[in-house]
């Protein structure tokens, strides 16, 4: 709790700017009573992806070129939402670049999102990133088993997620217990929680 409080306090310096960004994000993410009817899954997922970064710590060696890279595969809508959402924001004090999967060979992203539209072999893709400090988020059943750290799923028509902390630990990522506390299921944790 103390460390969280400290981290919260450390962020106060950029509060003025952040509150503006938050307001902008709210315009997109926060469902208005009318927009609630049209619950946009992609927007929620984009927002969740952004929020995940707040609960995860990357080792300093993970970053190349001072840019926080996000790679989105098989989910162009989510990629667009992210690009819009993060257009003028930074993550971990770095400018953000949201890229497509096409140039995967050259890029070393810190966050990799694999959407439902990904046609390739998920296990093979994930194997490429195993052991590297990359937060892998999947959106299909069995995503965690395939090597993903976080996996989206729909519960009562609402976006939820499940987690697997073990690969994250081997990847050198540190995930906040708070994030684990709101996960639907934690793989290898203290038994599965059901909604």
């Amino acid at each position, binding site marked *: 709790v103390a460390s969280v409080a400290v981290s*919260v306090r450390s962020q106060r310096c950029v509060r003025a*700017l*952040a509150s503006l960004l*938050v307001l902008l994000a709210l315009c997109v993410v926060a469902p208005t009573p009318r927009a609630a009817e049209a619950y946009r899954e992609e927007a929620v997922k984009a927002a969740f992806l952004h929020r995940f970064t707040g609960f995860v710590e990357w080792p300093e060696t993970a970053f190349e070129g001072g840019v926080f890279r996000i790679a989105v595969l098989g989910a162009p809508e989510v990629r667009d939402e992210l690009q819009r959402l993060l257009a003028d924001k930074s993550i971990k004090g770095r400018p953000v670049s949201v890229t497509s999967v096409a140039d995967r060979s050259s890029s070393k992203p810190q966050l990799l999102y694999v959407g439902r539209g990904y046609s390739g072999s998920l296990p093979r893709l994930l194997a490429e990133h195993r052991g590297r400090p990359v937060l892998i988020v999947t959106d299909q059943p069995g995503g965690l088993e395939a090597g993903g750290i976080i996996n989206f799923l729909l519960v009562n028509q609402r976006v939820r997620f499940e987690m697997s902390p073990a690969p994250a630990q081997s990847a050198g990522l540190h995930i906040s217990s708070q*994030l684990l506390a709101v996960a639907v299921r934690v793989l290898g944790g203290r038994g599965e929680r059901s909604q």
Partner: protein
Amino acid sequence: MKHLFGLSDPRRSVRGKLGAAVMLTAIVVLVTSGAAMLIHDLSVYRRSWAADIGTEANLLALTVGPALAFDDRATARRNLEALRSRPAVLAAVLFAADGSLYASYVREGRAVRLPEAPPAVDGVKIDGSRVQVSQPVEFNNEYLGRLYVQARYDVAGRVWAYLGIFSVIALVSLVAALLLSAVLQRLLTAPIEAIGAVALRIIREKDYSLRVHPTGRDEIGVVVQALNRMLGEIEQRTRAMELTNETLRQEMQERQQAETRRRETEGVYRAIGESIDYGVWITDAQGRLTYVSESFLRLLGQTQEQVSNMGWASALHPDDRDATIAAWVDTVRGGDSWYREHRILGVDGKYHAVLAQGVPIRGDDGHIIGWAGINLDIGRLKETEEALREADRRKDEFLATLAHELRNPLAPIRHATLILESPVASPEQRQWGRAVIARQVQHMALLLDDLLDVSRITRGRLELKREVVSIESLINAALETARPLIESRQHQLTLDVPKEPVLLDVDPLRVSQALSNLLTNAAKYTDPGGSIEVGVRRDAGGLGISVRDTGIGLSAAAIPRVFEMFSQMESALERSQGGLGIGLALVRGLIALHGGTVSAHSEGQGKGSTFTIHLPASTLVSRAAG
């Protein structure tokens, strides 16, 4: 609070007042500090309570942050449920970022009205017995929603608990203060009581040498010191006052003695004044009488005031008055002494010769402050003067008479001598001549004898040769001398002598001499052919021998002086019988030597006179003894 717990009650003892003061002070201190601490405590409590609830809300907001971030309502509810462990928290509401109610918690058994919209303002608000906290939920600089927490603020319970503790502390400390003051009072009241005891002793015994034993250097010690110093002062002053009183008493005594002496002296002076006729007089500087002796006032019949107002001047003889007043004015003006004789009209209607004599009195500076002097009664002096002058005149007369009496016989003697020497004188003539000489010589001898006797009597040189003789022999001896003159003037002599013999123890020569003098006088002052009667009468006081004549008699005025020396009647020189005027004086002297008296009686001039010799009984000799 009446009389402030009796502190201002004058009947209350110092001990009681001290106790009341201690209790009152303790109560005031307790209440004041208790109230201050309560206020402070409530303030601290409020702040800490607000901070406590604020922290709770803050933590909860952090906890609930992820649930809100990832839209996990169940977790959010579970997070809020954790407040169950805080009984003070009554309710909590989590609002989403769009302001909709996301999750809520209400403590069981509590009916709490929850806000429908998130409170706009951040922070802690205490409102009566409620604490409300509105806390934004943020994560990673992103506003996620708002947390509202409502909790109890139990100020009344706090106050009651505080009052309970306070009451116990107050009770304990008051009891302790009471016990402590009971002990400490001894320390304070004992010296005060000691002071009081000494003060009472001083008042009772008037012993200002008593001192209070000093107790220390505190206020009571200062009072004791001051009291002791004051006592020292009083003692000193009392001693000085007693000394002064003693001095004053002595001075008073001396003054009284002086006054007594002065009064005695005044009494002496007054007595001296009264012993002088007519006393003393005192005037002021203006010459007004301020005092005269009583004797002078009695003489004038005036009061002191009347005399002071020139009453003495009005009593002056009219012939003396103006001159005396003028002289007095001059004397006062000149500051001279006063010496003046004048006559003053007494209250008896007679004028009294008074010699006033006085001198000015001078004060210390030499100025005259008055006069003082005496009034001398010089009336007797004047009378004596007059008497002396009269005596002198009579002496002159006597000398003239004596010269005349001695000269008278010389003419017949010389005439007789011429006749005796004359060759032609007859024997008869010669006989007549011798008889003349013999008679005149005897006359002169008698005259000189009388003179010598008178002289002896007045000088006290005459001695009586007493022997017992009969009255007849005395009368016969006297008649033997007087008979020639009686017969020559042809008087008729009658004797009236008692039948029984009368014996006397006297000097026969002197008594018969006195008797013969009376007979000679009777014969001399009775015209020829008169009658002379000698009578003898015995009475209780002795024996009376009277010689009565039918002669020229005596005036009433002449009777008192008839026995005085040289008091012969004025016409004596003209009378042929002449005489020195010492006969009766001689008679009186001779009889006086025998203790008897001589008296004269006359009906008036020309009516004859009676002279009576009275011999006292002591000269009578009883028959038995004889």
